[in-house]
């Protein structure tokens, strides 16, 4: 069992607990033990773009220092927003020694960050380190005939400097879906923003986006959508059910985290905590009747 340092992010400890637990289960099937960091703090999403505001870089850089203190060169994330924020802050301080020196001198109780930690997303682990064949190997319930729409959102592929795939034509999620035996679905909105934090004060924007994205995926034949961001999940799942109630429009499209799909394919859907979803995916996954019986 190979141990990898893992940065959970706040949501995975509470509202997106199913994402973390399915990830821990799926990783064990791949011979990987996700070891949670001893001490970590909120990543401070969304990455702060003003050049002079170092206060908002303290959160992410402090996490990198903790990873360095634990003696790891790589730290793996599951949530797209944490991954994006940590990567961009890492890049900022690696390329700007003066800013790094200021941050290090401010954080006078921790070691100085040396800039040698690399932030990796879980999909990069699967694609670049394990390879899709290794991901396919533990599948016991191949998702044959299940049409899955990949939803990248904004944070996985953008900005180009840290994106893990080509923002205009990403394929990593398609390969991921195929490796689990399901059918990837092509549809135009795979990388259009779900409305993000507008869900707090401008809910209508998100309701509109959720409706547009999920009905487009459904029209393209998707049985369900997968994402790796707890905010996209909330917007596409909870806000979608609100949109459907308001518009009493088409059939709801369930939304899963990437590792929940892996757990189902590897034969264990208990770790997915599907009861926390607004739209219950178990019917779409046909866990009750079709071949995907629970053990």
């Amino acid at each position, binding site marked *: 069992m190979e141990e990898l340092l893992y940065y959970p992010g706040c949501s995975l400890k*509470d509202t997106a607990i199913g994402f973390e637990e399915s990830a821990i289960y799926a990783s064990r099937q791949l011979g990987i033990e996700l070891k949670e960091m001893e001490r970590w*703090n909120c990543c401070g999403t969304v990455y702060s773009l003003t050049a002079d505001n170092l*206060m908002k870089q303290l*959160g992410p850089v402090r996490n990198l220092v903790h990873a360095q203190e634990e003696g790891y060169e790589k730290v793996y994330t599951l949530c797209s927003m944490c991954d994006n924020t940590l990567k961009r802050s890492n890049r900022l301080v690696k390329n700007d020694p003066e800013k790094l020196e200021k941050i290090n001198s401010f954080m006078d109780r921790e070691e100085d960050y040396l800039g040698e930690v690399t932030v990796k997303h879980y999909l990069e682990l699967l694609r670049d380190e394990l390879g899709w064949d290794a991901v396919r190997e533990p599948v016991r319930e191949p998702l044959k005939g299940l049409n899955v729409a990949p939803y990248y959102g904004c944070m996985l592929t953008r900005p180009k400097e840290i994106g893990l795939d080509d923002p205009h034509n990403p394929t990593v999620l398609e390969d991921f879906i195929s490796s689990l035996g399901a059918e990837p679905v092509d549809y135009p909105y795979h990388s259009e923003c779900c409305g993000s934090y507008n869900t707090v004060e401008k809910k209508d924007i998100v309701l509109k986006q959720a409706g547009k994205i999920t009905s487009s995926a459904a029209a393209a034949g998707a049985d369900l959508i997968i994402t790796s961001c707890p905010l996209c999940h909330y917007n596409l799942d909870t806000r979608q059910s609100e949109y459907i109630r308001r518009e009493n429009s088409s059939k709801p499209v369930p939304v899963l985290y990437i590792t929940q799909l892996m757990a189902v394919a590897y034969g264990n859907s208990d770790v997915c905590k599907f009861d926390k979803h607004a739209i219950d995916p178990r019917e779409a996954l046909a866990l009750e009747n079709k071949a995907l019986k629970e053990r």
Partner: protein
Amino acid sequence: MSPSNEDQETVRIHIMGKEYEVPKGLTMMDAIEHSGYRLIRGVGCRGGFCGACATLYRLEGDYKLYADLACQKTVEDGMYLMQLPFTPAGRKTYDIEEIGRDGNPLLENYPEVARCVSCNTCTKACPQDLEVMDFINEAIRGNIENVASMSFDCIQCGICAARCPAEIPHHHVAQMARRVYGKHNLPKSDHVAARVREIEGGEFDESLQEITSLSREVLEERYESREIE
């Protein structure tokens, strides 16, 4: 301190900028009083429990801004100190029966907790050396039990809230977490509940009636012969 006054070693301190000479070894509180101030605010238990004597101070030639309790910190030479008579912080009124049933009561009642930028200023300010930033991060994650245990020794002096750039009232968030944990998570003790029912059911009426009517001598004999388990 019985040494005679002349060879008494002294230190130079500045109370709100005004210079005074005080004997070495006094706490900040004793030094303020020794300099002639009669405290009304900035003093309470004088034992490190109540947080009334929250004090900010700087040392000559040192850029850092320190915070400590006036009753627990010895004066140093070249100390510039200022007491916080009151630390304003937004406290939310709530119904203990309702909150904590579902969702994250800390984030719902104190959304500003999500503004934390993890700058650790609160931890550096805490005179009780609590890991304040860590338990605020636990509050974001809704881990009530961790917030309660990590914040237990908080004496609510409010220095963290006074210095927080995100305007979080850490001590109020922590108090709410401890109330929710104590009420909804900590298991109730059956033997206490059982004993309350027994007493209300009159089980001890007779034996109490008997012992309260004993003469002093009999009572004394009963006391001296009682065995201690």
